[in-house]
């Protein structure tokens, strides 16, 4: 079951469509869109009325962005080590290392801002959701933002 899923994912991340997302100038807009989609979910959580519907709708761009990030990075965060080569594993490990530091700073800043603003309960929940969603994809975003281009073809 897991093997089939990995096989399918391996084919997807090595497809012609994934090839088109490999350039840094295509990866970076996806990173920005991912951050915006996390903000959107935060705003939806803070909305009054039918909050669940808003959150469900706002989650779609987030999941789409996550999928595009995975494709643009050839699934290095999804595939098992056996399906990756040493460079891909190194990129993944470096991204995790950087993301850990980023997440710590990001959380401190957000907690400080939230305490200064003295937010109400839904507001605090929205900020916490934004922080969680950003940190969850931080390694992917960092790798997609920083990985160098591979222009040469033969």
């Amino acid at each position, binding site marked *: 079951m897991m093997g089939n899923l990995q096989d399918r994912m391996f084919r997807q991340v090595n497809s012609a469509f994934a090839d088109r997302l*490999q350039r840094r100038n295509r990866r970076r807009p996806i990173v920005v869109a991912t951050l915006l989609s996390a903000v959107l979910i935060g705003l939806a959580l803070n909305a009054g009325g039918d909050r669940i519907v808003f959150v469900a709708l706002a989650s779609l761009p987030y999941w789409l962005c996550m999928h595009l990030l995975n494709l643009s990075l*050839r699934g290095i965060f999804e595939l098992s080590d056996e399906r990756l*080569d*040493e*460079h*891909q594993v*190194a990129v993944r490990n470096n991204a995790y290392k950087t993301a850990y530091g980023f997440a710590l700073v990001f959380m401190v800043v957000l907690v400080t801002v939230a305490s200064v603003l003295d937010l109400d309960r839904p507001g605090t929940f929205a900020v916490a959701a934004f922080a969680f969603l950003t940190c969850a994809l931080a390694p992917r975003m960092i790798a997609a933002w920083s990985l*160098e281009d*591979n222009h*040469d073809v*033969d």
Partner: protein
Amino acid sequence: MTSTKEVEFYNRLKLLRTERSVSRKELAEAVGVHPQTIGYIERRQYNLSLSLAFRLASYFGLSLDAVFSQRPFEPLSNETLRAGASQKQADPVEL
């Protein structure tokens, strides 16, 4: 003590591939990596492991130091000229 960050490796992979008409994909398949990884190694954007370095050198049937070096490689024409000159010294032409 030299830190690993300061160590930079030079290689002749692109030259060898061109000379032997091997595509990046063919080489990558032979040594078990993604074709993009070969590109990163060729452009010195990634310091490969010793194991992969041996696999690459052995694919071309060369020793490790013929493919990788810590100093920039001299142009092959210079090396050929020098090798030719030392050959002449070793085997002087009989008159």
